């Protein structure tokens, strides 16, 4: 905000302490927010995993009656919703938060308080959705919430209302975070860092953020329409009132397919950082990886109806969407060849992050190939709503996104904490996950080909599906065991610290140039960037001639370090020398002050959401808190005058 002379009466003092719970509630530090995202989404990962295990237990034998059909509906709905919106997206956001400022040589994101707001709204949105379990009426209409099944006629309980309200709250958080990272990456780069010198993970974050900013409003529209149908009795998806349930499918998948790339592109970015580091070669064809990512993001908007081949849109629509779906496999394939090219001739070290990344390539390729099979409408008509589709998207989301994220966890853990995750436990974690994952999902391919339908709570004992289902269920528990080993690893490594130093993997990008863990101000001195993979060439200047024979210096000015406040927009005084890691010796480096208002504002948003589930009084209370948070935020200077 500007230097407004208005001041709010201070209801409580601004947070100052750097320890204790209030320092976390008031934090605007991108690293702490990243940690919060990581912890909260990992808790939801366990919840979603337990839901999956319950599903697999029920399906382990034919005619099983452990779980009744209604509970089964709730379990698969919440499993999908949780894993997509509360696990993969926020785990990616944890990496965005931790890494983007470090990778581009900045001291924080462009809007630190908005960043905190995104996290708190995400937290409350996730609580709203899961609060439905307490009411005993969890969402049961699938993660895609198809109308008219999600309408009040067929679904009179409150479950789908929780779902739609929770998703709308989460959407606000995602859009705010997306806007923040777009501006951060475009505006806060270190001096000299042109757009084609930023690390590839930063590029994928930028592309993902653009997708989030453009796709989440589409989900918001679908959510508002369904919510007003459910709460106020409008007719958007009610055919008796002139609406059309197919419209829901169009709008949902117009969001839903870009969403798929929102889930996978960050993992592709992680893998594109890990492979060059452990092959000790630059990423093969960096511009191709960038443009392939951008092409995927663009074409992702023109494929949504491949989810609807059996709806009956007609041959023209099906043909068009079939062609666009086959085309989008091309940039994806380009990336796979780039990764293989990176490995080719490299001096490969097989550490845990590398094992996960190489597995990512293999598993994602399998999932991608079964995806191309769906691109053909007649083939898809056979596969629609069978376990073949379940196998396909788990190969891209678990074998793709999740393996990529685990690769990133093992890769950057030393940077986040200062110590390694244990290598032996890491390999056990990887092996169990790979065995369990393949045992669980590979049999689903032939179960689906054999016609086993999705979302049905049981199957007859004369179908010949029992052994495959049992194998899948055992695989699910082995996969869960792998996750358990990961948790053990986290605690074991914390107890028996093996310190990593600043640059344990011989890294290439700027985050390895600062200490592990980084000081609160990230860099003692904002780095000057000359090359792509600049840190590598600082370490090994003799390799510059090999890779940069025709590179020119680019005049890119230094990025501003703060969201606003003209008082801090003048060049930041840079302090060199001592790095005590606490910023005590760096009084000249301005960091944004902590603030409670993001938390208060998010409480207001949560109150508004909860109001749609309860009554108008709660809406009014939420609105009052929201306005209080907004005004307090607007009147609070980024930095208190000292």
């Amino acid at each position, binding site marked *: 905000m500007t230097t407004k002379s208005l001041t709010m009466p201070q209801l409580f003092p601004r947070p100052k302490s750097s320890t204790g719970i209030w320092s976390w509630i008031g934090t605007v530090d991108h690293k702490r927010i990243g940690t919060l995202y990581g912890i909260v989404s990992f808790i939801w990962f366990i919840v979603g995993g337990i839901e999956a295990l319950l599903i697999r237990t029920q399906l382990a034998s034919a005619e099983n009656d452990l779980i009744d059909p209604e509970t089964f509906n709730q379990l698969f709905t919440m499993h999908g919703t949780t894993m997509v919106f509360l696990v993969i997206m926020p785990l990616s956001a944890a990496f965005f938060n931790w890494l983007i400022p470090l990778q581009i040589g900045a001291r924080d994101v462009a809007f630190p308080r908005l960043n905190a707001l995104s996290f708190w709204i995400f937290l409350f949105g996730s609580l709203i959705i899961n609060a439905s379990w307490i009411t005993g009426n969890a969402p049961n209409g699938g993660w895609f919430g198809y109308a008219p099944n999600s309408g009040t006629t067929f679904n009179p309980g409150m479950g789908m209302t929780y779902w739609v309200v929770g998703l709308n709250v989460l959407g606000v958080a995602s859009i705010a975070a997306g806007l923040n990272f777009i501006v951060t990456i475009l505006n806060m780069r270190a001096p000299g860092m042109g757009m084609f010198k930023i690390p590839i993970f930063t590029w994928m974050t930028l592309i993902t953020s653009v997708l989030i900013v*453009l796709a989440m409003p589409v989900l918001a529209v679908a959510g508002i329409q369904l919510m007003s149908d459910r709460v106020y009795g409008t007719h958007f998806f009610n055919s008796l009132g002139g609406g059309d349930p197919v419209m829901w499918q169009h709008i949902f998948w117009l969001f839903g397919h870009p969403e798929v790339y929102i889930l996978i592109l960050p993992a592709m970015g992680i893998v594109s950082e890990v492979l060059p580091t452990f092959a000790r070669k630059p990423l093969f064809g960096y511009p191709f990886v960038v443009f392939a990512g951008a092409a995927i993001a663009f074409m992702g908007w023109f494929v949504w109806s491949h989810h609807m081949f059996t709806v009956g849109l007609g041959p023209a629509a099906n043909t068009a969407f079939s062609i666009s779906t086959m085309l989008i496999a091309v940039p994806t394939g380009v990336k796979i060849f780039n990764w293989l090219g990176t490995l080719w001739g490299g001096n490969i070290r097989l550490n845990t992050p590398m094992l996960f990344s190489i597995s990512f390539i293999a598993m994602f390729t399998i999932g991608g190939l079964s995806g191309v099979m769906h691109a053909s409408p007649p083939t898809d008509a056979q596969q629609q709503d069978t376990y073949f589709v379940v196998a396909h998207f788990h190969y891209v989301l678990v074998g793709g996104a999740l393996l990529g994220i685990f690769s990133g966890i093992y890769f950057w853990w030393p940077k986040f904490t200062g110590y390694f995750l244990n290598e032996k436990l890491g390999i056990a974690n990887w092996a169990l996950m790979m065995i369990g994952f393949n045992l669980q999902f590979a049999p689903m391919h032939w179960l689906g080909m054999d016609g086993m339908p999705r979302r049905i709570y049981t199957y007859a004992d004369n179908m010949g599906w029992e052994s495959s289902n049992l194998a899948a269920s055992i695989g699910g528990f082995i996969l869960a065991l792998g996750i358990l080993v990961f948790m053990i690893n986290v605690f074991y490594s914390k107890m028996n610290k093996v310190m990593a130093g600043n640059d344990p993997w011989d890294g290439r990008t700027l985050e390895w140039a600062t200490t592990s863990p980084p000081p609160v101000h990230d860099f003692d001195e904002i780095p000057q960037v000359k090359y792509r993979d600049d840190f590598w060439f600082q370490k090994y200047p003799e390799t510059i001639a090999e890779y940069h024979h025709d590179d020119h210096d680019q005049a890119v000015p230094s990025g501003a370090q703060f969201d606003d406040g003209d008082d801090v927009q003048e060049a930041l005084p840079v302090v060199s020398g001592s790095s005590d890691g606490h910023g005590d010796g760096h009084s000249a480096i301005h960091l944004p002050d902590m603030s409670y208002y993001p938390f208060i504002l998010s409480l207001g948003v949560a109150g508004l959401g909860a109001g749609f589930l309860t009554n108008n009084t709660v809406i009014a209370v939420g609105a009052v808190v929201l306005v209080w948070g907004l005004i307090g935020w607007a009147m609070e200077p980024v930095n208190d005058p000292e």
Partner: protein
Amino acid sequence: MTQAAATEHHEPVENTSTGLNSRKLMMWAFLASDVMFFGVFIATYLVYRGKSLVGPYPSEILDIPLTSVSTFVLLMSSLAMVLALHYVKAGEKNKGTLWILLVVVLGAIFMGFQFYEFREFAHEGLTPRTNIFGTTFFILTGIHGAHVTIGVIWMAFLAYGSHVGSLRSDNSLDLEIAGLYWHFVDIVWIVIFTVIYLISFSDGPPAGVGPTILH
């Protein structure tokens, strides 16, 4: 801004990688997001156009002259917005305050028209629950009205800031960013006015019988 360049070029030079102010850049990105938001609502309206099974139909209820007046009022608020930014940048405090206030007043008049229209429609038997025209009409124009309301409140704060001297030429960016939002909301109304009022005003009962499936 302390850089010498700032005084030479009038536009302040930003200390960012792109040279663009971060808040301004974010407003543009947000507007892109909002384009998708309104775009899908408008698409929904167009897909459902003429699909109402019962009245009142658009031809029976839309008042084009009345809405033309309110549209004119909203368009004029954009003119006031441009002049407000001009005078605030020029440091003419009183004129700046006056023109910002006019934006607030014109925005409020537009909202008054919308309130009157909603009440009148409800009186004549059209609510969001009546038919698909009512559903799409009220939600789309209501969402737009919520945007205008937020803009009016925002502008009122800025008018107060200009009055007490905290909004000046050196931080007129605050007003410029609000102006981007205001003009955008205005442009959206031009589209809504076109698709709901000008294109659909003669829409009567559907020719076909029963609901039709999207193709």
